[in-house]
């Protein structure tokens, strides 16, 4: 994991002092709210429905025990004992005081954390594959490049007041778990002979106008990628629309200019960079950062853990959890495990201080100090010996973190919705809980198999409803909450935007509609291994739409 050197540490401390000054000027009235707002947003501070909210950056979802313990302390001391992990692999605190935020930022700086650029019209937290560095299906670990992009984009003087927010995601795996095709820039690392480079996708996004990204470059060598990103950013900063915030994302520039014309603009800007303009990232710097991400030493183990097999036969709960929450590790005898933050009837992505501390302990005892946040609002311990799973599982049971549902129907992405958010039109959490309760039986969930339900409380789509296999969007109809269902979205390498099935339903009709939808899938699948999205792709949406609107 990356560690700050004196430059990184100084920059973060200086940022805290700068923000402390801004808060002081806001509170004495010399800085007006309209002028303070972009400044606080660039430091992750929102004013939400009930209070200020602080979004802390977790670059590419990477945590360690010291960091998550500090988050637990902040939740306890400055908030109400919990935090909310987000779809950008960050964490949000919902009840902080503005006057406390400079102190919170100082305690974060102690553990090499910050809230820089977690909001505002700038380059946001870089996200990545939560199994990076552990999974068998990647060509290399993408995190060194996430870190280099994080540093390059931090306080970039030219790109602090972009037309709109800007999100970059990086993956190096065949199976895209970072949703790169629905990002402003999605980077897929590729290898050509001995050379590493990036396939560049631009102009994806969700929100009001969901669009799948266009690939504009096949292979930009790693030594040039930051210069290439500068070229893309400059084209966007100069030519992106600023007359309408709903048309200001780069996806609109790409689609209005046309992908070819946009590519030509970027190529021309990239080619025009003179020797005094390029970043000329030293190879020694790439090597320095890569050294922080060397794979941990994991003693050789046999590929099938006898201890685990034995424990599984004795404990059906462990057996089920081991079937659903493990991901293949590149080294035999190890696994990457998902700690679900989606208990049935709970709050998606929330963790209490006690749970955060328990996760820290487990990562220390069993997991090489490595903890990741997923964009699906769960936690991953990427390097776990299979032999340790029985002990680890029993600890998870004790702290209420042993939900066996990774990737299943109750493992939903759910935005905070109208219960917290100033932008929301409808609540998301209660409708998600009601759907979970309708599918509470673990055996049934497992039989249904992989099915992603994503719920957003407004068109801004923080709950990624456009790319849920089943998407649910809350809308306001004259003060009443309604929910629009869409079908067929996906966020992976086959990224697609879901299609709206029909009229929106009142809250109480949603769980029944989802049950009919799922019953239709189970009746129509060719065999239990054919997933919901595969069945939908094979036979089309019509039978599913009928099921949604079938009278009870």
């Amino acid at each position, binding site marked *: 994991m990356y560690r700050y*050197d004196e*430059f990184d540490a*100084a*920059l973060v401390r*200086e*940022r805290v*002092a*700068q923000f402390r*000054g*801004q808060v002081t000027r806001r509170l004495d009235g010399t800085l007006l709210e309209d*002028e303070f707002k*972009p*400044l606080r947003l660039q430091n992750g501070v929102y004013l939400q429905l009930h209070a200020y909210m602080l979004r802390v950056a977790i670059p590419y979802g990477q945590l360690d025990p010291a960091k998550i313990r500090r988050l637990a302390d902040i939740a306890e001391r400055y908030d109400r004992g919990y935090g909310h992990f987000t779809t950008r692999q960050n964490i949000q605190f919902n009840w902080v005081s503005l006057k406390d935020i400079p102190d919170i930022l100082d305690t974060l700086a102690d553990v090499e954390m910050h809230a820089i650029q977690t909001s505002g*019209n700038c380059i946001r937290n870089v996200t990545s594959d939560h199994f990076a560095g552990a999974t068998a299906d990647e060509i290399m670990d993408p995190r060194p490049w996430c870190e280099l992009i994080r*540093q*390059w984009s*931090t*306080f*970039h*003087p*030219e*790109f*602090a*007041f*972009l037309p709109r927010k800007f999100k970059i995601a990086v993956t190096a795996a065949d199976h895209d778990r970072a949703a790169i095709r629905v990002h402003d820039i999605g980077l897929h690392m590729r290898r050509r002979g001995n050379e590493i480079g990036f396939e560049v996708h631009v102009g994806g996004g969700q929100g009001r106008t969901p669009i799948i990204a266009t690939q504009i470059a096949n292979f930009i060598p790693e030594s040039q990628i930051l210069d290439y990103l500068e070229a893309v950013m*400059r084209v966007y*900063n*100069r030519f992106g629309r*600023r007359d309408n915030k709903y048309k200001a994302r780069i996806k609109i520039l790409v689609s209005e200019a046309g992908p070819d014309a946009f590519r030509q603009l970027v190529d021309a800007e990239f080619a*025009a*960079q*003179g020797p*005094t*303009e390029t*970043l*000329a*990232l*030293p190879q*020694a*710097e790439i090597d*320095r950062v890569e050294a922080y991400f060397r794979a941990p030493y994991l003693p050789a183990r046999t590929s099938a853990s006898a201890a685990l097999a034995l424990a599984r036969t004795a404990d059906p709960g462990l057996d089920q959890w081991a079937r659903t929450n493990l991901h293949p590790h590149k080294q035999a005898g190890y696994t990457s495990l998902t700690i679900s933050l989606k208990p049935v009837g709970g709050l998606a992505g929330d963790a209490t201080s006690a749970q955060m501390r328990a996760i820290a302990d487990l990562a220390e005892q069993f997991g090489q100090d490595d903890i990741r946040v997923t964009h699906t609002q769960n936690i991953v311990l990427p390097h776990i010996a299979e032999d340790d799973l029985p002990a680890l599982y029993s600890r998870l049971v004790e702290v209420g973190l042993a939900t066996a549902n990774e990737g299943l129907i109750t493992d939903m992405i759910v935005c905070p919705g109208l219960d917290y958010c100033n932008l929301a039109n409808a609540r998301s959490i209660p409708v998600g809980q009601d759907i979970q309760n309708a599918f509470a039986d673990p055996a049934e969930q497992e039989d249904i198999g992989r099915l992603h339900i994503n719920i957003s409380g407004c068109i801004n789509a923080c709950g990624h409803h456009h790319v849920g296999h089943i998407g649910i969007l809350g809308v306001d109809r004259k003060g009443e909450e309604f929910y629009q269902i869409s079908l067929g979205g996906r966020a992976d390498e086959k990224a697609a935007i879901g299609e709206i099935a029909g009229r929106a339903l009142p809250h109480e009709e949603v769980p029944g509609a989802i049950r009919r939808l799922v019953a239709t899938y189970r009746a129509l699948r060719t065999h239990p291994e054919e997933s919901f999205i595969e069945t939908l792709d094979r036979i089309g949406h019509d039978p599913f739409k009928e099921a949604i609107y079938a009278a009870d």
Partner: protein
Amino acid sequence: MPLIKDGRESDNIWSNLDDERQDIAGSHVTVSLARFLRHKAEHDLPNVTLGVRLAPEDDPALLRPFLDDLILIEVSFPKYTDGRGYSQAQLLRRRYGYRGELRAVGHVLRDQILYMNRSGFDAFETSRADLSQVLAALTEHSAYYQPAADRAPSIFARRHPRSD
């Protein structure tokens, strides 16, 4: 409006001439890019020292043939949230090699001045920040990751001195 240049309060000898107006007050005048280019073709603004005031949508490349003779380019920020002026400044300084005064005008606030300075501005016309605030803003960070028009060595470079 107060002018802060090269870290000092400075007298402003320049005035801005609206495109509609013909009467010129003073010897140093900035005009829009369009009017400047017209003057370069028709020489209709004799006997004054001309500078240019760029609007956010202007292409600074059009000034390229004239940069050796220009001593002032103003970049206007109608709203401080419109960041196009930062790219104009970086292009003028780093790609086109402009060495005259580059002045931020319009909605220029204390908390944007550091980014402006790094992008190549050396003068700020602002009623919203006094000298001490501007100087404080310029020293809020001791180092920066990326190279920019201020030619400060980047952290990426400083980590690897060329002696190796």
